[in-house]
Structure formats: structure tokens, C-alpha cells
């Protein structure tokens, strides 16, 4: 693995290897006096965030620090980006400073792929070796989120293969939904997307999943339901009449949670808008794995850094 840009770069064996590594890292740190591993000593990990984020950025930073990497955070606010520097120049500057790994979040879909292409060209020209991790690019992909969701499902359900997972809400603007559909399908899950027709992207028929517009028809057969945040900041136009109407049509209410099978798990990639896509009582219920997702996020990101940085370059 040279970069982690898309879950479609991972076959079932590679994805399972990452999840197994995450499990083992979790075990290795369990109940320890010193919660730090020496594995990435001397490696520099830079997070470069052009969009707001709490959990992803902190999670990557904690993951790097627990493995003894030096982590540096760059955000668009307060950096030279504000002075008009391009993405390419900022990234090459960071690589020239010796970054072994650049973790990037950007509002433009494909930003991480462009960075990886530049990094590879730079490697051929100057011998610097920087790997790129996509921490969310526009409405395209968020691979580590899908990996941590898969890790959480594996914890709670025992396996992903053969399970039916519903992904409900604003699929159109969600990189989390796209990454999850492809990763969970790769791992053998049966995925169903549930959304109003206005919130589904063009080409969704080609995704390896089933499409539904009726949440109540699906609930009783789901092993897990993942609710997505309605991304108001990306919406330019009217996709549904009102927040209240959306909540009535697609929100995961108490009544809907009660219609799920006993063992079913509720996931949310966060940040949640309580009362909109998920009722507060459901988010805090025993079947909610939302905080487990956050905990697994650190271990999954440690696993990604381990696979990218710990071994010899391929």
C-alpha cells in the first residue's frame, strides 16, 4: 500500500488485514500503563485540513502520537493557504520539509488523488517519499471512516459478510456513504441505501447496493442502520421541503428503532444533528455504537499508518 485514497484500492484481503491490525493494536494497548508504541519513531505525519473537522483530525493525530510519530497539524485557516498558495505548492512544501505522510481533507472531490500523483512525480524527481491518506475529499470518499465503521460492525455483529446494512439519509453529499457502500460490499455485506430521490447521486444504480426510498419497509431486516447527517453546508437548492418533514420521512425515531431486530446496531459517522436524522434517545440507547465508532477510529487510523509507514517502502 503506497497511499490510501479510496476504498476501491482495497480488496477483501487488504481490507481485512487492516481491520485485523486495528484489532491487534487495540489489544496491544488494552489496560496498559504506557499507552504508546515506539513503532513510528522518527516518522513525520502532517494533517492538512481544508475543511472543518474535530474527530477525524484529532483521531489521526492521536493515532500518530500513540505510535510515536511526530504529528503536525496544518489547517487552511492560519496557514499560507490564506495568502493564496495553491494546494500543490502547500503539499510540496510540506513534503520538502520531510513529511513521511500527508493526511488531507479537502472540499474538492479528487484532491487526494491529485496530491498522490504529485507526490509520486516528486519521488521520481527528488527521491522524497511521501504517502497520502485521503481524510475526506468533497463528496467523493472517506476511506478511514468506512474502515472504522466496518471495524465497529465486526465488533458488534461478529462479521460483516452476509449482514444487511442500511445507510439512510443524504447520500448525495456523503463521502461516507460512498466509501461504506463499496467497502462493505467488498467485505461481503448486503447494503441498502435509503434516501429521498433528490438526495441520491447520479450513477448510484451502478453502485454495488440496492436502493430504497421507504425506510419503514427496510427496518425489520437490517442488522445495522447507519444514519447520515444532512449536509446543509453543501446544499445549493431545495432537496426536501423542511427539516421537520425530513425528520418525519427519514429520521431514526424511537418508533423506527423499535422496528429494528433486537440485535441491530445503530451507527452515525458524526457530527450528529439530534432530532433531525436521529432522535436523541436512539443516539444514546444501548444499540447505538456511535462512541465505539470513535474509539475504533483511532485504532483503524493507527493500522493505516502502520501499513503505510512501518515497513520498508515497496
Amino acid at each position, binding site marked *: 500500500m503506497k497511499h490510501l485514497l479510496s476504498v476501491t484500492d482495497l480488496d477483501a484481503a487488504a481490507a481485512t488485514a487492516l481491520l485485523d491490525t486495528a484489532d*491487534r493494536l487495540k489489544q496491544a494497548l*488494552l489496560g496498559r500503563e504506557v499507552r504508546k508504541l515506539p513503532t513510528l519513531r522518527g516518522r513525520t505525519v502532517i494533517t492538512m485540513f481544508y475543511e472543518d473537522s474535530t474527530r477525524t483530525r484529532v483521531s489521526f493525530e492521536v493515532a500518530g502520537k500513540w505510535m510515536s510519530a511526530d504529528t503536525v497539524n496544518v489547517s487552511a485557516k492560519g496557514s499560507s493557504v490564506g495568502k493564496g498558495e495553491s494546494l500543490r505548492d502547500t503539499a510540496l512544501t510540506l513534503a520538502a520539509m520531510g513529511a513521511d505522510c500527508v493526511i488531507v481533507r479537502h472540499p474538492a472531490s479528487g484532491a487526494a488523488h491529485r496530491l498522490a500523483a504529485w507526490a509520486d512525480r516528486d519521488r521520481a524527481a527528488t527521491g522524497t517519499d511521501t504517502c497520502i491518506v485521503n481524510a475526506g475529499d468533497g463528496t467523493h470518499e472517506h476511506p478511514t471512516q468506512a474502515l472504522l465503521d466496518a471495524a465497529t460492525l465486526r465488533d458488534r455483529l461478529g462479521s460483516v459478510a452476509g449482514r444487511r446494512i442500511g445507510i439512510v439519509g443524504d447520500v448525495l453529499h456523503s463521502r461516507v456513504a460512498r466509501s461504506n457502500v463499496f467497502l462493505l460490499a467488498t467485505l461481503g455485506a448486503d447494503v441498502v441505501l435509503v434516501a429521498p430521490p433528490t438526495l441520491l447521486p447520479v450513477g448510484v444504480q451502478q453502485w454495488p447496493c440496492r436502493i430504497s426510498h421507504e425506510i419503514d419497509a427496510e427496518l425489520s431486516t437490517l442488522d445495522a442502520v447507519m444514519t447520515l447527517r444532512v449536509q446543509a453546508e453543501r446544499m445549493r437548492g431545495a432537496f426536501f421541503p423542511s427539516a421537520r418533514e425530513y425528520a418525519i420521512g427519514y429520521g431514526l425515531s424511537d418508533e423506527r428503532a423499535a422496528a429494528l431486530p433486537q440485535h441491530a446496531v445503530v451507527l452515525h459517522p458524526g457530527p450528529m444533528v439530534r432530532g433531525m436524522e436521529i432522535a436523541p434517545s436512539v443516539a444514546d440507547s444501548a444499540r447505538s455504537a456511535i462512541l465505539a465508532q470513535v474509539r475504533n477510529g483511532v485504532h483503524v487510523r493507527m493500522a493505516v499508518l502502520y501499513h503505510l509507514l512501518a515497513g520498508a517502502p515497496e
Partner: protein
Amino acid sequence: MADDRRGDGGGASSGVSDRELLNAADVARIIARIAHQIIEKTAGGEEVVLIGIPTRGTVLARRLAAAIAEFSGTAPAVGWLDPTLYRDDLRRKPARALEDTEVPEGGLDDRLVVLVDDVLMSGRTVRAALDALADHGRPRAVQLAVLVDRGHRELPIRADYVGKNVPTARREQILVFLDEIDGADGVALRREAGA
């Protein structure tokens, strides 16, 4: 951990010859002897924790614990610890898969830890395991038990309990087979032709 032991033990391909060093009865005798030595050296095996180094060290630790329980009446705690994250040669090979780690309940503080591995060679795996142990707690003392010591030490490390000392050439391999993993017990020395 220094050797690849995933051979078939039969020397099937031409140019490879395997010589049996220990058979199943030898392995059983060695485990019984080391169990007695541990009881003797630790005054009855109280407060002893056996920590295996995966994968075959884990199997050996479990067997030693069963033997100690049988001989002394006190069953020592058993755990296993993957030292991969502490290795000094990680950057020489592509990232390797990690093994399970499980420290027994009660932790390692003030207990007598016996590390258990199948083959001792360079000592680098044991060095990594010692560093990993230190991050898990502060044992009263750490001892080392190995099934085979084949020499070629690169660090000042010595085993407290040795099943068999085997003089080897660097290019030879020691193959350890254990019933739980390989279907039968035994130790063989593999020599490549022309080596």
C-alpha cells in the same frame, strides 16, 4: 521468530535436507523438565506469569503452565505478547501482520514473568519483547525459557531455561513443529544444498 518454521518438515523439494533433532517424546520430556526447573527456581511457581511470544511460544507457554499446574498444584497465569511493534528491523521488510496480545488479569506488576519462545537466535525478538513488557508494567523479574538455543547471539541476552542447545550454521534453519499448529511435535534442522 528468527526462523521461518512453516516448512513441511519432510524435505520434499530437492536440494533441501532435514535432520530430526527432537521427536515428540523429546519435546514432551523437555517441557516437563523446564516446568520442574521453573518450579524449583521460583520457589513453587507462586506469582509466576508465563508470557508466550506468538505463535509457537504461546503454545509452549500454555503447555508449560499445564505441566507446572500438574507438578506443583499451582497454575500459573498465561498470556501472550506480540513484540512486532517493538522490533528494530521493521523498516527492512514490508509491514508485517500483527499477532494477538493478551496480558493476564492482574497485570505484570511485581510478578515473575517467564518469557517463552521456541527458538533463540539473535536475541532481537527477546529484546523487543522486553521493551514491550516494560510498557505493560513493572515485573519483579523477567526470565526466559526457550525450546532451542541455536546460538548466533547479536545482543547480550541469555536464556534461563533451555530445552536443547543446537550448534548451527547461520544458513541452516531450525524448524519447530507443535501439535496445536502443525499436527505433530518435533524439531528439525534444515540444510539447503550447496549451503
